[in-house]
């Protein structure tokens, strides 16, 4: 009876991809990129965009080969059971890890900025419980809430830009192109890593109402994310210049903190923080769903619900105990995260693509010249 059971539209899918990238990237990228390349940070984010589109083409090309079954069933039929299980477990580990990082990032922020006295375990448990609830509803439900939260986020981003106009100083962007190339590369790498999260398309593919549009969906998702990240970096640069953001913990929210109109519009950063929290929740829902999907589909587990709870507990513990303190976590974000993201999102899919291309070649028959 449902209109389109368990199917998601192309716009919903593009928004899902964008929401898988921006919530956490919006917190880290301004600090890291501006720290590395100063006033040219926005250029480095823009430069990462074509690379992101390259990834989108790769993911789109792989997804279009899929006849509409789960990614792992398809790998199983094309490359064999072993490859399917290994790829599934690897991706499950990737989704689990990103979900843990997302929670940790949220909890660090909340315990630093909003709820200093609330136990960290409580702050971690709330989002994971919400993610479990959403994931149990399936990707269709997540896609719907994602679209609504995305619209809210865009509205508040536009509102933020409007309210911050009187604080912006365009001279902070000059001189343009001052940073040397190695600095630009260092600055753009985190954005490249985050944009590679568009690999989410692999698990979305069987749910798409129009699977032929996979490549366009991935490109749209990556582009939406890249434009948003560039805007946020520009916003921070225009308010704080090229020096300060590199040593600030949350420059995007600091920009909202200084909004002031008259004596009644002030300290509205909390409203923007609330919207950001909602986007983080959506990202978490996507990655909890992704972890369970990869795990159960690669191992052909029919009853996913018990694993949803078990995996969520694992994510909860992982986020609490994998990083002893904030410094360790920041080090992970700056040094390890990008390499990890690129390995799981670029190298593994590229190897799979290569394997599929080789496997597709017809075997040379006897007597034929090589």
């Amino acid at each position, binding site marked *: 009876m*449902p209109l389109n059971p368990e199917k998601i539209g192309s*716009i919903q899918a593009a928004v899902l991809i964008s929401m898988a990238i921006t919530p956490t990237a919006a917190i880290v990228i301004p600090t890291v990129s501006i720290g590395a390349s100063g006033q040219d940070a926005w250029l480095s984010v823009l430069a990462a965009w074509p690379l992101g589109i390259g990834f989108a083409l790769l993911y789109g090309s792989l997804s279009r080969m899929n006849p509409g079954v789960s990614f792992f069933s398809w790998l199983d039929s094309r490359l064999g059971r072993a490859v399917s299980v290994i790829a599934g477990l690897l991706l499950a580990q990737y989704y689990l890890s990103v979900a843990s990082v997302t929670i940790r990032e949220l909890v660090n922020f909340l315990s630093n900025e909003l709820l200093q006295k609330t136990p960290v375990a409580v702050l971690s448990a709330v989002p994971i419980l919400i993610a479990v609830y*959403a994931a149990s509803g399936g990707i269709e*439900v997540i*896609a719907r809430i994602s*679209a609504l939260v995305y619209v809210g986020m865009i509205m508040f981003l536009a509102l933020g830009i409007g309210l911050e106009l009187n604080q912006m100083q365009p001279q902070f962007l000059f001189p343009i192109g001052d940073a040397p190339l190695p600095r630009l590369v260092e600055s753009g790498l985190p954005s490249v890593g985050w944009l590679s999260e568009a690999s989410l398309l692999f698990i979305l593919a069987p749910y798409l109402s129009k699977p032929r549009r996979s490549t366009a969906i991935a490109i749209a998702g990556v582009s939406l994310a890249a434009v948003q990240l560039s805007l946020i970096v520009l916003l921070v640069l225009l308010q704080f210049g090229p020096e300060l953001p590199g040593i600030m913990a949350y420059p995007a929210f600091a920009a909202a903190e200084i909004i002031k109109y008259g004596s009644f519009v002030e*300290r509205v950063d909390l409203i923007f923080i*609330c919207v950001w929290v909602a986007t983080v929740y959506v990202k978490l829902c996507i990655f909890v769903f992704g972890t369970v999907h990869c795990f159960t589909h690669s191992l052909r587990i029919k009853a996913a619900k018990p694993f949803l709870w078990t995996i969520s507990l694992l994510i909860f513990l992982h986020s609490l105990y994998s990083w002893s303190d904030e410094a360790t976590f920041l080090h992970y974000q700056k040094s390890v995260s990008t390499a990890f993201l690129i390995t799981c999102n670029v190298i593994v899919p590229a190897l799979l693509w290569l394997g599929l291309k080789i496997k597709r070649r017809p075997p040379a028959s006897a007597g034929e010249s090589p």
Partner: protein
Amino acid sequence: MKLWNVLFRRKRDQGSSQQRKAVKQDGRSGKAVSRDLEEGLSKDVDENLRTIVAELGGSDDLTIRKIDAAGTDSVVVAFIYIDNLVDSAMVNQMLLHPLMSEIGESRSGKSSEEWYRTVRDRVLAVGRVHEMRTPEEALACILEGQTIVFLQGSAAALAADTSGGDKRAVEEPGSQTVIRGPKESFTESIKTNLSLIRRRIKSPRLRVERKTLGKLTQTQIALVYLQGIAKASIVEEVRRRIDRIDTDSILESAYIEEFIQDAPITPFPTIENTERPDAAAAGILEGQIAIIVDGTPFALLAPVSFVRFFQSSEDFYQRYDIATFLRLIRYVAFFVSMLLPAMFIAITTFHQEMLPTPLLISLAAQREGVPFPAIVEALLMEITFEVLREAGVRMPKVIGPAISIVGALVLGQSAVQAGLISAAIVIVVSFTAIASFVIPAINMSIAARLIRFVMMILGGTLGLFGIMSGLMVLLIHLASLRSFGVPYLTPLAPFVWTNWKDTFVRMPHWVMKKRPPTIADGSNLVRQGDDQMPKPPGRKSKF
């Protein structure tokens, strides 16, 4: 008449199967009785009467009228009906009088068969007359308010529709009032309610499917929809869900609502109810299916989406700009009703920095001496208000003003003066209460009231983060709901552009060319012609 008999007999068969079930499940009382009931009627009038009377336990409201042949003691005709369920004047004028005249004139010399045909085809002067062959069928008809006519020598009886009795007149709606628009509301009579819809939709495509539900109450219900405009799959689903209801009583449409709704565990209504015939007709014209239940003035409408609960009939009778403004106010009121106390608690407890300094100082001064934290203060006030509201609904009208004075003066003003609560919380709770009355659908308003308490607890324990988390849970819940397969958050998510013309804004009627495709049949979406924008002849371009 023949056609009617064929049609009605089919429906009666459905009814009788229900009745048969009822008799079987009703009591261990009796296999013997049920076997008798399933057997055919006797040719002897007295025997048939005895069976019916025995089955009804000699009930005092059962009326039997026997008519003898002229100059003999032998009964030739008998009427049986239940007092107050029938229209007595109709029984006298349309059944008794013509039959007695006929007995006098043409009874003699006719065979039983001929006499039966004469009575059936020429004597009984009512619209609906049908044959029945078993006491079981006769019983069902008597309980529906029909009059049964037994004829000596005939193994069939005739049921004449004389249902009537005391009924409430069509009055102004009590809970869904409008300033401009029809002032009629449904009544407790299914016949009246169906006629109120028929008068608004004079289309041969309007379908009415009658069913009987409730083994003991034998409640008549009717599914009303427009053939070709309501989606056939949804009509079939509604039918299927209603057919699987197996209960002994249906006393109000809410019983049916609970049996057929998509999500049993949710504070949000997934089926609309209305006491306004114009609202029901508007829903039917958009492709909804109305379920009218005998004995209640509230009709059900399905499928429905979340945004529909913020629309009032009056939106379509007012100018579209005014209607849009009022609709937006309703959405704001919904969020105020759900979130304002929680926001107050969160901000005054966790995020005082959000308040402008003069307001913060004023609030701090008011709260000085209040012995409770903000959350306890707010919860106390909210619970007090809910008690007052419930008392307002239940108490006799005569003492209403007294309760209002007690509520406003004693609980409000005196509590502030005694330093038990701050004046700010009184303002917050009052505004929240007023906002909750703005929502046109009472069931949606109640949902907001329930959620308010959860939000207050979240705001009091985790501040804005808690409220945000609560809102996310709410959003996920709403996104997972469906009403007869239609996503509850349509047209927001999934996004359906056609429906947006009547969601947050109410576009002019001439812009809303199509019916909502999520509800209406895809082959019949267009409801009006192109280019319907008014173009008065004198209007010229100013350029």
